């Protein structure tokens, strides 16, 4: 069982959390100006890196707040967790 460090509740069992996909996907400034292709890319196209990945998580079983996490997709290690709105922190030792 893995522990995930909720920014509000501290380390909790992974069963209390839900996954929300890639973080820092900004809503387009002017959605009407986008072509169909650009709109589809905003909606559906996500990075799939091998290594550190910034993701959205939600602490369903606790404070029910969304937060962001940097997770290594190879080792599943959570490098950092931080509140929504905060910039992505620099983490070291990412798997390449």
């Amino acid at each position, binding site marked *: *069982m893995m522990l995930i460090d909720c920014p*509000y*509740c*501290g380390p*909790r*069992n992974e*069963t*209390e959390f839900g996954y929300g996909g890639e973080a820092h996907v900004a809503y387009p400034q002017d959605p009407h100006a986008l072509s169909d292709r650009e709109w589809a890319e905003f909606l559906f196209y996500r990075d799939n890196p091998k290594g550190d990945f910034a993701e959205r998580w939600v602490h*369903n*079983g*606790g*404070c*029910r*707040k969304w937060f962001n996490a940097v997770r290594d997709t190879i080792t599943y290690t959570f490098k950092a967790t931080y509140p929504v709105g905060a910039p992505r922190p620099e983490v070291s030792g990412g798997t390449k």
Partner: protein
Amino acid sequence: MANVQQLRRSPLAARSEELHNASGDAVAVREIPFTTQVGIRATQGTEGYDALAAALGGLPAKVGDVVGEPSTTAVVWMSPDEFLAIDKPDTGLAETLERTLGDHSGQVLDLSANRTIIEVSGEAAELVLRKSCPLDLHPRAFQVNQAYVTEVAQTPLILWRVAEHTWWLAPRISFADHVTNWLLDAMVEFSGTKG
């Protein structure tokens, strides 16, 4: 109109005898029904937060914190901007807090029928809960009058240590039966029940 107070049934009322029979010296379980529960949403630094904090003697600041005493009125930390006030039955706390909040931004909502409280007490209570709850329940980490929103028996609930060997579990009422079944099963080895 019928008196609603007389008609209401707590989720575990039909099982009170079963709970009593399963309880022993090492660990006992009972239901504490009909507590007044008021959901509060207010963001720190707003006028609504300050008004509610003044009325309740403060609002809990961080995870695990409880303001007040379980025997009277207590406010449990649910999330940074959400709190749950728990009081004795039928105190009208929700109406009082609604008036306190007034037109300020925030929310006061009567959630009394949302959760029931199951009390697990006795020397072995911690051992029973540790069978399912991954939180550190040692008194060093989980102090008296701290409460956490977490999972026990795969069920989301509020876990509240009201005394060193007394725990309150507050699951939503539809899960009360499941949590009870799970507790009774976990208690068998500690209590004198004839399994």
